Each structure stands twice: as C-alpha cells, then as structure tokens.
C-alpha cells in the first residue's frame, strides 16, 4: 500500500455538488411564477390594498374603509357577552316556585304593548304584567352543556374512527396486506373516506338520520377514519424491520408480528395522531352543527340566524376556551407518554 499523499490524483475528477444549480434556479422561478398567477386569481392584490387602507384609517382616523367598518360593526354587535338568561315563567313546564335553579330569582316585569282595539278601531296601550325567571349565569350554563355535547360527539366520532381505521390501516399497509387486490381496495376506501369533507357527509347523513348528534358522530368518524387509516398504515410501513424479521424467524404470523414488533414502535405516534384527531373533531363538530348535526354548532347557527350576536359572542369564547384546554391537556398527555 502506498502511504497517504496530500493532493488529488490527476486521473479522477472530484467535483463537489454546487449549491446553486441551473435546475434549482429554474425550479425557483417556476414556483414564483405559479404563486404570481394563482395570487392574481384569488385577488391577493386587492386583499393587501383593503387591509392597508383599513390599517391606515384606524391609525389616522381619516378616510373610509370597508374592512374597518365591517370589523368595527362586528365588534360592537358582539360586545358585551350574553351571560344571563331570562325566561317567561308561564312558558316553563312544571315550574316549581319553591325550588328555583341555582342563583335564580323571579322578576315581575310590565310591558307596554300597542294593540288595535276591534271595537273602536284605535290603538290602545295595554300593559301586560308577566313573571320572568332570571338566571344570572343561565346562558353560560346552556353554552357549557352544548359544549359538553359537542365534546361527546367529537369523542364518539374519534372512537368510531379508530375502530374503522385500524383494520383499514392493516390492509392498506403494503407490508401487511395479504395480497395486492386487498391492499388496493383498502387504500381506495381510505382515500375515499378522506376525500369527503365532514360538512358534506353531514349534509347527507342529516337527511338519513335526522337532525341531532348521530349524523354528527358518523360524519366525523368517516372522515377521521380516512385520515387515521392513512397515517396508521404509513407508520406500519415505516416501522423498523429488524424486530419484525426476528419474530418472523421464530415462526410468528403477520398478526403476531404486528402486535409484538410493530405496535410497540408505533404506539406513541398513534396516540399523537389520535389526540390530534380528537382536537380536530371538536373543532369540526362545531362546524357540522351548522347543518343541524347537533352540538354547539347548531346553537350557534340558531342564534346567528336570530341576530342574537351577544349570544354568538358567548359561544365563540366558549369554543375558544375549550379548544385551548384540550390543546393543553393533549400536550401534557403526550409529554408523559413519550
């Protein structure tokens, strides 16, 4: 052997890859071109212009801006939040005066109404006295109940999604599927489920199952099953093959290999995906409530259509708080599991 020499031999060419290649610059220009064309189609220029004028109007207080007007209108109509609830006593079935709900009291209110007197054909001022049950935290409680219902819908949507996606994931992982046909069929089902947004399937499921949480749960479950099926399957495919081979060598079948060599490896990822799906299902559950699939969304839609914007504001704050709490809890849970 020759001793190592400094300097390169002349016969072989050593060339380090260049940082900037012609191909790279071309690709960069192509991406910029695509962004420019698509940006014009979705009116990004106007967006910047409107936002800039809104900012300048807010800052200087001069001129007019459509965006600033709209936003301030929203702000003033949402504030203050609706916390209490007032119900006419006469409309409450089986009302028991001796046992009022927590913090509630009864108020007597007199209301002046103008009615047409049929005899004199003149407008009479009639004063009506009615008793009202006033619950200072009534609407807040109502929102909380609806939020819990939404959480229940999200939870069951997730549970059913897991049940559907586990067998689908097994068959749509190329290293586990018994044959090519089953693999293709399972993959197509997973893609199909993922391709249909919850809102769309909820529209149809409401027709089939009627208004209420069943349609919501199923709509969430079907979409999330497509999502989980894809990610579960990809994790099965990417799992370390050495333990799998070791178990195959001692005569374990596919299911045993999955349980002993793959499941322990993919478990943290599975929990992470599932927590994400739970979080996402909660947010989507509020959206599909809009089409009548139960939960806080249905309440939101109802209040919005009745122009009760103070109620809407309470609901929005409630949703935000719940999402925040779920996020904190899942982060804590994941830290403990990894």
């Amino acid at each position, binding site marked *: 052997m020759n001793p190592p020499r400094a300097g390169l031999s002349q016969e072989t060419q050593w060339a380090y890859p260049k940082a900037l290649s012609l191909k790279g610059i071309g690709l960069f220009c192509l991406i910029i071109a695509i962004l420019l064309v698509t940006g014009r189609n979705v009116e990004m220029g106007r967006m910047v212009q409107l936002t800039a004028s809104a900012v300048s109007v807010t800052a200087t207080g001069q001129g007019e801006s459509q965006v600033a007007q709209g936003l301030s209108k929203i702000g003033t109509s949402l504030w203050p939040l609706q916390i209490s609830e007032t119900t006419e006593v006469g409309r409450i079935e089986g009302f028991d005066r001796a046992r009022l709900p927590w913090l509630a009291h009864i108020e007597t209110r007199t209301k002046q109404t103008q009615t047409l007197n049929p005899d004199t054909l003149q407008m009479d001022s009639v004063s009506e006295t009615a008793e009202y049950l006033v619950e200072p935290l009534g609407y807040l409680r109502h929102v909380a109940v609806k939020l819990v219902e939404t959480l229940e819908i999200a939870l069951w949507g997730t549970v059913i999604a897991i049940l559907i996606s586990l067998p689908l994931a097994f068959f749509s992982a190329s290293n586990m599927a018994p044959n090519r046909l089953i693999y293709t069929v399972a993959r197509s089902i997973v893609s199909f489920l993922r391709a249909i947004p919850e809102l769309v399937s909820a529209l149809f499921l409401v027709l089939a199952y009627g208004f209420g949480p069943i349609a919501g749960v199923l709509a969430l479950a079907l979409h999330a099953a497509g999502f989980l099926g894809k990610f579960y399957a990809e994790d099965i495919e990417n799992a370390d093959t050495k*333990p799998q081979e*070791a178990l195959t*060598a*001692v005569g374990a079948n596919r*299911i*045993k290999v999955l349980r*002993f060599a793959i499941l322990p490896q993919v478990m943290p990822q599975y929990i992470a995906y599932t927590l994400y799906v739970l979080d996402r299902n909660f947010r989507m559950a509020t959206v599909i409530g809009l089409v009548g699939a139960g939960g806080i969304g249905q309440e939101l839609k109802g209040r919005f259509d009745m122009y009760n914007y103070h109620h809407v504001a309470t609901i929005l704050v409630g949703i935000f708080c719940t999402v925040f709490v779920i996020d904190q809890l899942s982060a804590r849970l994941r830290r403990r599991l990894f």
Partner: protein
Amino acid sequence: MTASKPAHVGFRAVSKTFPDGTQALKGVSFDVARGAFCVLLGPSGSGKSTLLRCVNGLATPTSGEVFIDGEAVTDKVLPQIRRKVSMIHQQFGLVDRASVAENMMGGALAEIPTWRALLGLYPDHFKTKACELLQSVGLSPEHLQRRAGDLSGGQRQRVGIARALMLDPQIIVADEPVASLDPRISQEIMELLRQAARLRGVTVLCSLHQVALAREHADQIVGLQRGALIFDSPVENLSDDDFSAIYDLEPLA
C-alpha cells in the same frame, strides 16, 4: 470429519444470487454435527449472513438445498423448522420500546395462540420459563419491566439469547451476535452462548469476524470468502496461516 455422528444441519451446493446480480453464495457444501458449535468466519460480504438465513427460510437458495435432520428446508415445512431453529441477531432484533418481558414472549410466539398473544394473556409456563432463562443469562428481576432500549448492548444480547431459548430449540443460528459489542462484553456473550448451547445440547451456527473468538469457542470452523467455502475443519486442525488466508484478500478489481 463428521463421519462418526450423523449431520444435524447440512448444506448441499447452496448458491444464492440476489435480484441485482450479486452472487452471495457459490455452491457451498458442509455438514454440522448435532451439538456442535460451528463458527462461520469471513470478511464482510463473504455470504455468512445469507448462508445462515437460508437455514430458517429468511432467504431461499437460488440452487442447492439446506437439510435439517436429513429433511430439506422448503416453504412447506418452514413452520416446523422455525420451531426448531431460533435466531440471534447482530442488532439484537428486540423491540426497543417494549419491555424485556414482552420481548421474551416474542420468542415463544409460535406456540402461543393468536388470541392469547393479542390480549397479552401468556400461558403461565412461558412466564416462568422467561424468568428462569433471564436468570440463567445473568439478568435480575428488575430488568423484566425495563424497556429493551434502556438496557446496555451486552444486556440486550443476553435478552436476545434468552429469547432464542424460549422454545427449547435444537438449533440456534447466530448472525454476528457480538459485532456491535466491545471486546470484553463480546467474550462474555460468546461464553454465555457456548455454555447455554452445551448445557442443552443445541447445535449452534454462528457467524463471526473475530478470529480469536472463533478459535476459542468453536468446535468447527467454516471459512468463507466471497461466497465460496475455503475451508471446513475442526478448530484444532487449523493453523495460523489458514486464518490469515481468509482476510488476506487481493484487492477487489
């Protein structure tokens, strides 16, 4: 040289060509006697692993046959073969995130019904056996709950050996069992493997690349070079020149 005893594992003109055209084995033939400790020696890429993987069907020879107890290893008899043959791996083949207890049960999966395996309801005699084996390889009860990934390399290979003994195999195939361990631990692991095999009368086929370890522990040494057998001999008949011959290669063209 094995004329006195019937061959336990026999290789007959085993050749293996990979789909990319690499010829890993070129007509290898030799016999291993029952209860013998046979070491395959050879540099990286000499076909040691492929040869071992042909024994339990992880690889299939392109031509030639492997015999166990005079019966050819074919796909049809693989389930029976795999109950008789256990394997020890270079990278241990353990699931790092699973506990040592779970990993041990992995070695007995062929005998555990699928539903019991899925639910984790292992038969009591296997649980007892796992504990006994872990004790015999020098681990202590607190290791049972630990994740395999938290153990040291030597401890992991001890688990690997104990796992290989779960179903009382007749043959152990060890693919570079000490290649990822330091020299002192390698020595301990080889002694453990040797002792465990002798105690149970298990035939061992072990690939190594450390000549010193091979000379110390083997009954029989098989030398491989670029897929071809260059010697097959009881260890006492080999000279220093024989050993230096397998690593003294002319540079590859």
